[in-house]
């Protein structure tokens, strides 16, 4: 029995509608398809869920309202006052990552967030946005963020580079955390699936592990979206309320 294991095959980008414009490949891929589905589902949930807004919400309205309240609470407690205007952005970010993660768990689908370029694009938008907000709000004063208070001038030579570095690695940690979690989880699922296919009747053990792993992955999918959103809020707070 020669079953070949390709645990990484699931991450391959496949062109669904090949398209070239000016030598740039802008094909509609499986990745793009899943992103479109995620955006479509979120739009459907929020638009249809609140169309017939009742005082006593039905199921869909409940889900839409609960997700909104969850993120609103997140923004209020973590980004401080005056951050409500960024709620739509954080909500979009949270829902997109959450749906991308959850859709990735559907068999034969594709996990958008397991590609570092996707998570990095999201992270760099947050990073650049927060930096711009900081400068717009505080001007050159924003640079004070990198100068710790009450430190002898000699130590500043050492501390300012550390502060700068820890500011500039933010998009990387944000991107790598989400990407690595999704990649590792899905690879693990595929490997145990491969075991199951190659050991005959003993397959009950790897399948049992896989069932548990799917539960864990559901948790990770939610937690990672939550962590991404919460960190965005914390960065926003830094930019809005210079300590």
């Amino acid at each position, binding site marked *: 029995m020669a079953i070949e294991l390709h645990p990484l095959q699931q991450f391959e980008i496949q062109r669904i509608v090949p398209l070239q414009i000016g030598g740039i490949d802008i094909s509609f891929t499986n990745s793009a398809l899943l992103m479109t589905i995620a955006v479509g589902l979120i739009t459907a949930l929020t638009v249809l869920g609140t169309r017939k807004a009742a*005082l*006593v919400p039905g199921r869909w309205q409940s889900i839409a309202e609960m997700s909104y309240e969850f993120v609103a609470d997140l923004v209020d*407690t*973590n980004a*401080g*006052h005056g951050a409500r205007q960024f709620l739509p952005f954080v909500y979009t970010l949270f829902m997109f990552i959450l749906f991308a993660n959850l859709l990735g768990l559907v068999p034969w689908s594709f996990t958008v967030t397991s590609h570092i370029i996707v998570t990095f694009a999201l992270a760099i938008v947050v990073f650049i946005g927060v930096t711009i907000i900081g400068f717009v709000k505080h001007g050159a004063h924003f640079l*004070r*963020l*990198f*100068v*710790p*208070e*009450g430190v002898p001038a000699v130590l500043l030579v050492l501390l300012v*580079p*550390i*502060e700068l*570095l*820890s*500011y*500039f*690695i*933010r998009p*990387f*940690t944000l991107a*790598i*955390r989400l990407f*690595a*979690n999704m990649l590792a989880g899905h690879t693990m699922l595929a490997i145990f699936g491969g075991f199951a296919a190659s050991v005959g009747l003993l397959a009950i053990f790897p399948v049992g592990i896989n069932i548990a792993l799917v539960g864990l992955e559901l*948790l*990770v999918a939610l*937690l*990672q979206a*939550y*962590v991404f959103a*919460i*960190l965005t809020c*914390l*960065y926003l*707070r*830094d930019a809005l*309320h210079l*300590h």
Partner: protein
Amino acid sequence: MSESEPPDRLARLGKRLDQARAKRDGEAAATRDEPALQQGMAVGLRIGVELVVAIVVATALGWAIDRWLGTSPWLTIVLFFLGVAAGMVNVYRALTGVKMAVGYRRPNAPDAGRQRANDKWDDEE
């Protein structure tokens, strides 16, 4: 539900909501550990990457600048240690409830205390 007057219906709904809330709060008290566990997991998942990425990114940056300026290997070495320091600073801040704040100032610093008073942001860890 066949109440007669609209205001009455609202009042009754309010009453039922209050009852439901009271019941839920009673239940929530019994399972109060759950949010704490979730918070813990969220923090844990956040910390792991922090240190590693700081070192890797800083060292890669040093290596790139070295190649660009031809100063190999000095900047790689310096930035490696700065990366270690930055990673540790980030982890320390995340764990002590200061979150990811760059340039954190003590709460008793004259201008920071005022802001901190109206912020209720670190009550969750």
